[in-house]
């Protein structure tokens, strides 16, 4: 938590300092008020006092109240500034950090968790600062000050106050110890409940096909009962809190008065009036003391939640970025990709995902990768844009190790299309011209890219054509359309090297083959790397690399591999008939 707060700017620290001073003044004024209050009380009570004196003291009290209000308003403004500034700065820092994380690290954290950390967790701490900072400063000051004010006044009263504080703190401590750990259970059960319902919703057709409605309902009912019982326990336990709090506070006032009555009775005449005044003042200070301890207790209750958030944020901020940039910006060669004895495993994993892969793609060549699910094709291709770094061996682009490139320069060479088409909340042309490759993309280029990727037809049917808006994640267009636009995005970059990570899967065979024909025509010199499941997609590649369980089991053309590579043959046979293969 403290680590995060260090991110604040100088301005924020100055604000915090001013707030501190103002809060001290505020506490002083608030503790002054009971003095005037009791003066007014005594004045009103005694016969000889003048109206003007009452008015004067009333005015003082009002001034105190008003002064404290003004100071609270200013402090409120400053603290709002600090908390907003905190979330501005921290969120920015976190966002930039996440942008620089490698895909492996992102996977480790999980995207949705990273989103929650950047949004909810920061908001949690922001709330704590907004609500808690004032309390955090004010409560101890008030407690100490108010205690010091009453400490010397009377031993019996002080004892009564001490007992009340102890009772309250004990009750709060016990409740906290009993209930707070249970909150986590409630959270878990809520998640479970949510899951149970989500399960039923997402699998609604399966549930009905299996006539499993009762099964699901019983499952839900069980979690629901667990949740309700846990909630009941928590809330019932907590419902002791308020009555005990009020009872203690009221009883304290009453005790102070009763003790006061006894003291007054036994004291000499001249002390009586002073004692009475003290009693009124003491009771209001005692309430202040109790209130400030309650405030502290509240802080200790919110603090754990916020500190969990802080921990989660720090985890991301402290994550070491494993992908370090090089400084090469230019290369002599163009359009070659070479793997030299490349192996890869996840940092904590025992087994290698890729083992000893070597191949070279020359300029203008099409190299395809095929293999069954989990064979490591996507991982292999992801080593080129350094989503992961090879554990052993070298990945060379234009004969320079990818680790030596400045990332921006490396990326400018690449046109990468992911398996899942990504769409941004922007217009069609903004989506296609997305990113930066050092060159400006003209309208014509964008149109051309859309045409090559066979998206022209549907784009021109849209209401605003190239300026039509695409919703976040492209929810307003179909999967195939998304995939075509994301291919257009790569084409618009006019890269040396294309990387297609199973990017044709949502297209039907016809579109698939037509698109690849177009692409080849449009980008004669470009090197193309394709990961695919369909034999049809890759049959005509210059080089096909067959992967099986992370190992390269065959390199060659379709025809060569049919003869030499058993795995390839099996894949091919599972998709085409023998005759068809022989016809080729």
């Amino acid at each position, binding site marked *: 938590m403290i680590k995060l707060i260090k991110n604040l700017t100088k301005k924020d620290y100055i604000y915090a300092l001013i707030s501190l001073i103002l809060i001290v003044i505020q506490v002083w004024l608030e503790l002054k008020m009971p003095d005037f209050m009791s003066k007014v009380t005594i004045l009103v009570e005694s016969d000889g006092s003048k109206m003007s004196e009452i008015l004067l003291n009333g005015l003082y009290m009002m001034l105190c109240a008003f002064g404290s209000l003004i100071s609270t308003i200013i402090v409120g403004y400053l603290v709002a500034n600090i908390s907003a500034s905190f979330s501005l700065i921290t969120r920015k820092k976190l966002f930039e950090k996440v942008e620089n994380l490698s895909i492996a690290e992102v996977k480790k954290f999980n995207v949705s968790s990273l989103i929650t950390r950047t949004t909810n967790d920061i908001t949690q701490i922001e709330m704590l600062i907004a609500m808690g900072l004032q309390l955090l400063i004010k409560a101890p000051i008030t407690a100490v000050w108010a205690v010091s004010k009453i400490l010397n006044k009377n031993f019996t009263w002080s004892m009564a106050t001490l007992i009340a504080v102890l009772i309250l703190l004990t009750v709060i401590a016990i409740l906290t110890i009993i209930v707070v750990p249970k909150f986590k259970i409630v959270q878990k059960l809520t998640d479970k409940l949510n899951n149970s319902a989500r399960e039923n919703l997402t699998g609604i057709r399966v549930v009905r096909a299996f006539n499993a409605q009762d099964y699901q309902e019983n499952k839900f009912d069980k979690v629901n009962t667990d949740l309700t019982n846990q909630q009941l326990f928590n809330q019932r336990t907590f419902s002791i809190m308020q009555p005990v709090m009020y009872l203690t506070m009221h*009883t304290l006032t009453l005790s102070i008065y009763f003790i006061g009555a006894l003291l007054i009775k036994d004291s000499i*005449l001249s002390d009586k009036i002073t004692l009475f005044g003290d009693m009124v003042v003491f009771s209001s200070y005692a309430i202040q003391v109790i209130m400030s301890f309650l405030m502290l207790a509240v802080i200790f209750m919110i603090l754990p939640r916020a500190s969990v958030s802080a921990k989660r944020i720090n985890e991301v901020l402290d994550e070491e970025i494993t992908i370090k940039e090089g400084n090469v910006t230019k290369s002599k060669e163009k359009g070659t990709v070479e793997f030299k004895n490349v192996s890869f495993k996840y940092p904590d994993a025992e087994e290698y995902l890729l083992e000893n892969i070597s191949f070279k793609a020359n300029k203008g060549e099409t190299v395809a990768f095929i293999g069954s699910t989990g064979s490591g094709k996507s991982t292999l291709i992801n080593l080129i844009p350094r989503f992961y770094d090879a554990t052993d061996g070298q990945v060379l682009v234009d004969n320079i190790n990818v680790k030596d490139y400045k990332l921006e320069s490396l990326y400018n060479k690449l046109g990468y299309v992911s398996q899942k088409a990504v769409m941004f909340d922007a217009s069609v042309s903004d989506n296609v011209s997305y990113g930066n490759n050092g060159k400006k993309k003209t309208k014509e280029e964008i149109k051309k890219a859309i045409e090559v990727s066979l998206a022209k037809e549907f784009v021109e049917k849209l209401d605003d054509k190239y300026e039509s808006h695409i919703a976040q994640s492209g929810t307003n267009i179909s999967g195939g359309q998304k995939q075509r636009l994301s291919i257009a995005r790569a084409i618009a970059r006019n890269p040396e090297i294309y990387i297609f990570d199973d990017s044709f899967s949502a297209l039907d065979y016809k579109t698939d*083959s037509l698109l690849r024909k177009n692409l080849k025509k449009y980008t004669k010199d470009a090197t193309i790397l394709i990961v695919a499941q369909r034999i049809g997609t890759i049959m005509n590649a210059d080089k096909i690399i067959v992967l099986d369980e992370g190992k390269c089991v065959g390199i060659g053309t379709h025809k060569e591999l049919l003869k030499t590579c058993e795995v390839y043959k099996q894949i091919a046979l599972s998709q085409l008939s023998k005759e068809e293969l022989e016809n080729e």
Partner: protein
Amino acid sequence: MNNKQRTPRRGPGVPVEKAKNFKEAIKRLLKELKGYKVFIIISLILACFGAILSISAPNRLTKLTDEISKGLVINTKNLEKVTKQITTNMTNSLPSVLQMNISPTIMMDQSISLEDKNKLSDALKNNKYNEIPDSILNKILTDTYYKGVLVTKTDKINMLKNGIIPGNLKDVIFDDITIDNVKITSSDQVEFLKVLSTIDKNSKNTKVYKKLDKLPKSIRLLIEPNMNMKKIKKITIYLIIIYIISALFTFIQSLIMTTVSNKFAKDLRNNISKKINKLPLKYFDKHQSGDILSRITNDVDTLSQTMNNSLASLVTSITLFLGSLFMMFYTNYIMAITAVISSLFGFIFMGKILSKSQKYFKERQEELGNLNNVIEETYSSLNIVKVYNGKNICDEKFDKYNEKVYKANKMSQFLSGLMMPFMGFIGNFGYVCVCIVGALLVKNDMITFGVIVAFMVYIRLFTQPLSQMAQGLTSLQSAAAASERVFEFIDEEEFKEDKVSKVIDIDAAKGNIEFDNIVFTYDGNDKPTINGFSAKVKHGQKVAIVGPTGAGKTTMVNLLMKFYDIDSGDIKIDGVSIKDLSKENIRKLFTMVLQDTWLFDGTIKENIIYNRENISDERVKEICKNVGIHHFIKTLPKGYDSNVSDNDTISSGQRQLITIARASIKETPFLILDEATSNVDTRTEELVQNAMDKLTKGKTSFIIAHRLSTIKNADLILVMKDGNIIEQGNHNELMNKNGFYSELYNSQFEI
């Protein structure tokens, strides 16, 4: 995660979602709460009583204060009594002590001035011997004996002039007197006179009290303030009882409300869960699951929280408000008006601030939503952002919204933070106003001091509930909105009950299916998705349905499984129309594997067995061996008892195989595979196909597939386009036709 932002913490000024029809929503809620009526009413009555008790308490506290402050005022009655008695005591015995020799010669004595002579006669007339001039005293006093004690002339002069009574005389001059059973000895009386003579009537109370403290004990006992400890004790005990009772009431009340609201929430959640399974599938085409989920958690939570916290506190605060208002006007109307006006002033001001902060809160929510969208978009497409060097674009967008959130945050936090200090100020302001006006009224003898003390408490009681009422009303509003959403779902129209007239027994089923000119249109579509589909399938046939996306392949399956009702036409299973069969009956006959791999949170075994009973572990293993995942499952740490959800090692292909295993466990006459193997690679698919073929031997099966290679050996291929069958036959027949199918098939091999 998407679009499901956690509901913001409710606080002052946070904009509330308003119900479309507040009254209707509350009415509907009340209807649902009927079962809990008694408990809720008891709880509200308790809350009401608790509030009334807390109003009556300050009244008593005032009495306590009054009673204590009585202990500050000296007993003037006794003081007067003592003074009178002692003086009379003295005056009575004085002449005989002094034994003044007042002879007429004095009057004639030339050495005495006329003035002094006049003084003497006045003094004698009034029995004020100390006013006798010194010149005369010297002459008329001599040493004498009083009751056997010698009283010298000097003693006498001292007595008269300085009030000093010689020790030996004390006992003889003053007789002991007894007032209210307290004996005052003669020396005490002398002491009293001495102290009294030093008191200046115009000096301050405290000074006078200090002097009075020097009085002898016996007299102090008489004149000291009399505190009625009995009464004080009584009031204290009474108050403690009130406090305890009111605490008990609050406790019981919240226990009841907690129980009721949680039980109510549980019922609601169960109702929603049950409702999910009673709605026709078309409902889910139009509604997102996130929306329904948020009704189960967020909306039900809002409802139960409102019931738990706000309802009782609303009743309490309204009672407090009205009660203190009543008590104030009952006690003194001028003071009451002062109190109301002084706090009203503050509240108007506060209302202004609140309405202003609403705007910022709304803005904050909106901007936060926008910012979250940017974050989500960037994080979930980070690979593209990186490779396309799109960081700048994202940063720009992010900074723009981050800055906007910052501004909105600042203002909304600031304004909402004002609420509490303002409340405090209004309380203090009212307090001072009441004190000043009260003091004025006390001066004019219009009220007693106790009234002011009472008002000091009333003003606090009066200002507190107002903010609680405001909060209570806001949460009531959001509860209404939540109840609207919850009941909207619960009241949603359920699917029609089947008119069951026939039953097909699973063991007796033959496996023939006939589609007869089926027409079906999805709700909200203009064009029918299925338009005149007709086909006959004989038992044991393997039927493949192929065609481009949107041709209606999956829809056919949906109709067959009675997920949707056919508009016109009929499907007959073994000659029986599905309209005459119950949904459960039809579904019992089919095994179905879907494209999306639906696994639930549980172990692999649980997922495979699902809701079937009496399935042995051996059977599960056998099936898994058939499908080819037995080996894989064995490699997992806990084998068949491994949990599905926290296992990243299970790939989507393997997940699909598990769902196939689940389907295979059930022996049914019909089998439907709706793109069931789309996530597994083609080699695995072949293995699975072989396993399935073994399983489906003699059964009628329907296979929907993208990959044409998988269906080449089907007995019948139905080629669908635009909701109709355009070609049918087996693979070779269709290829020879050179029609749509062969075109589709050949496109796989084009470059």
